[in-house]
């Protein structure tokens, strides 16, 4: 059932009984008013002591032009036995007789008989000084019942007209609701991309506004989910791609070793180990990258024992360093030194720094990893080497690329690859200071340090 029909029926269901009740109430008031008028007429005539002339044609006779008779008042006298004094007087109505015989002083009724309708009032008459009799006043013609019926019909017609008018008037409102429904449906179809129109300034506008707010939230979430899915697909695809090259190189080394095509088997094994180390670091870096790019999740900060971390990292890279004839040293302070942050992220960042140094220092070179506790409770970790180093201008470009993640997946020896991007991202996420410069031995020095403590206010 449509809104318009529902509204019209509701209006009719309310209006018709209301109007009918009002009309009936009005009719009842009119009837009582007329009865009272008749009673006053009778009392007046009784006091006058004589029967007054009829105020209209005798009962039973219509008007000569055939029109319904107008209101006429007749006064009739009856004896104590309810016999009429006048021959043309009507028989005393039984209902009024019973009422008076029952002791009532007066009785009244509305009647409709033989084409006449009206009201009657009868009272006891002891005014003549003789035996008690009765006087009945009768008003006929356009009586209350006829008026009431007409009024009821008029009221019902009026209520129906009102209902129809409402059905028409609500038309524009129904059109707005239908348009809103179409817009909501369209928005749902295209993933909440389009808002609905917020026209006007009523409850429908408020509904449209609230829908648009909910739509914005849902749209952002849908977009985030799609972006996350796209990132995951890209991650899987890139990981597969990035693993293929070192895997192929490793297969080449192992194949050559198997076939005895390597002049120095140890060198072949060393090269194979290097590819395995690279693939391991790549997988770990890609896993950390996924974690870093997962979104704006809060970093879980816990105390990280940097001394123990450093020992693990050096132990991890010692075999490859030894295979490449690179001396890898480290030093930790006497007491414990802790950083606040994510254990895996920090360890991977330090591991990347050490790996880069070990990779790019030539055979016979040196790498040292130094951890210092600072006087302000902070810490500093340095990776220094005596390799070829990097020019200052190149360092600047390197840091820019690391920040942007450019060529982050590059294996180019000079590009530092994904490793430095991870270091930069971890430093940024933790608030660590990351600096690259020239070491005192001519190579590269990379420094990672705790955030500077906030200055305290002093008066």
């Amino acid at each position, binding site marked *: 059932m449509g809104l318009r029909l529902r509204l019209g029926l509701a209006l009719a269901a309310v209006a018709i009984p209301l109007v009918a009740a009002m009309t009936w109430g009005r009719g009842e008031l009119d009837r009582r008013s007329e009865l009272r008028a008749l009673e006053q007429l009778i009392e007046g005539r009784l006091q006058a002591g004589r029967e007054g002339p009829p105020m209209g044609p005798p009962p039973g006779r219509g008007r000569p032009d055939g029109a319904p008779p107008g209101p006429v008042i007749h006064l009739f006298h009856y004896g104590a036995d309810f016999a009429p004094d006048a021959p043309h007087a009507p028989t005393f109505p039984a209902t009024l007789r019973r009422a008076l015989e029952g002791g009532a002083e007066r009785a009244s009724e509305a009647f409709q008989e033989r084409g006449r309708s009206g009201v009657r009032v009868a009272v006891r008459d002891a005014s003549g000084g003789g035996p008690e009799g009765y006087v009945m006043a009768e008003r006929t013609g356009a009586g209350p019942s006829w008026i009431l019926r007409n009024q009821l019909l008029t009221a019902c017609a009026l209520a129906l007209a009102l209902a129809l008018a409402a059905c028409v008037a609500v038309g524009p409102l129904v059109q707005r609701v239908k348009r809103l429904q179409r817009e909501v449906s369209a928005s749902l179809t295209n993933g909440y991309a389009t808002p609905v129109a917020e026209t006007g300034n009523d409850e429908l506008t408020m509904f449209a506004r609230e829908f648009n707010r909910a739509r914005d939230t849902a749209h952002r979430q849908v977009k985030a989910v799609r972006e996350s899915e796209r990132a995951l697909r890209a991650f899987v695809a890139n990981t597969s791609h990035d693993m293929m090259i070192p895997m192929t190189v490793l297969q080449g080394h192992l194949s050559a070793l198997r076939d005895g095509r390597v002049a120095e088997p140890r060198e072949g094994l060393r090269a194979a180990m290097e590819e395995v180390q690279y693939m391991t670091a790549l997988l770990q870096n890609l896993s950390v990258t996924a974690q870093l790019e997962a979104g704006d999740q809060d970093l879980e900060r816990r105390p990280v024992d940097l001394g*123990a971390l450093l020992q*693990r990292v050096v132990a991890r890279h010692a075999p*490859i360093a030894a295979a490449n004839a690179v001396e890898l040293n480290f*030093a930790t302070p006497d007491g414990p030194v802790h950083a606040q942050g994510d*254990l895996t992220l920090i360890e991977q960042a330090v591991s990347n720094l050490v790996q880069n140094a070990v990779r790019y220092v030539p055979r016979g070179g040196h790498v040292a990893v*130094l951890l210092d506790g600072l006087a302000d409770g902070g810490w500093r970790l340095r990776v220094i080497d005596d390799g070829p180093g990097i020019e200052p201008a190149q360092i600047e470009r390197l840091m820019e690329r690391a920040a942007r993640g450019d060529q982050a997946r590059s294996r180019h020896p000079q590009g530092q690859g994904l490793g430095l991007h991870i270091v930069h991202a971890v430093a940024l996420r933790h608030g660590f200071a990351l600096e690259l410069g020239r070491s005192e*031995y001519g190579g590269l020095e990379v420094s990672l340090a705790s955030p500077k403590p906030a200055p305290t206010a002093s008066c």
Partner: protein
Amino acid sequence: MLVEDDEKLGGQVLGHVRDAGFQAHWIRDGRSALAFTTEACDLWILDLMLPQGHGLDVLKRLRSVSDVPVLILSAQNETHIKVRALELGGDDYLTKPFWPEELIARVRACLRRPDAVHADCLRIGGLVLDLGGRRLSVDGQRVELTRVEFDLLAALARRRGGALQRGWLAEQILDPERAGTERTLDVHVSRLRKKLGAYGSCLATVWGVGYRFDVEGGT
């Protein structure tokens, strides 16, 4: 005690630790590992993903009965897993894959007892260093050392195997009123090496760091 369910990997790890001179017993599942938690041993190498139980449950049971060092092995690299393992009492966490040398280095690190560092008397071969009495003897002969030389030797011997930075040593050992520098420290090291004779090679120069007391040095 080695707990690892993968046959190939378990066999390799067993071989590595035996090649490094250790004796090892290999357990392949969680339920058996729980039954062995009361057995005496020096170190547990514990994988986390086990059939018939989880490595962390074995760790909890171990910690309820002993303080034996535990080296966790796992392919899971997530921080919350590592933190959980360390909070439950694991001493170290080694993520797969790993080189054999890395494994043995971590095993030795777990087995290193910190109590020995604070011993009053250090003996390395014929070298005896009485930290409380501030005396040194080499092959039974008393060797006189200056205050700086003794403090230098004591600091390095306490951290034997671990390098100490030159800057830190200079700051801690040298007399601040004499404005000693790292170069001054180098001179003291040179003199100390001479006094130690054959054991002078125990004082190794560590590139980029400073010095280290190598227990393998000397005769």
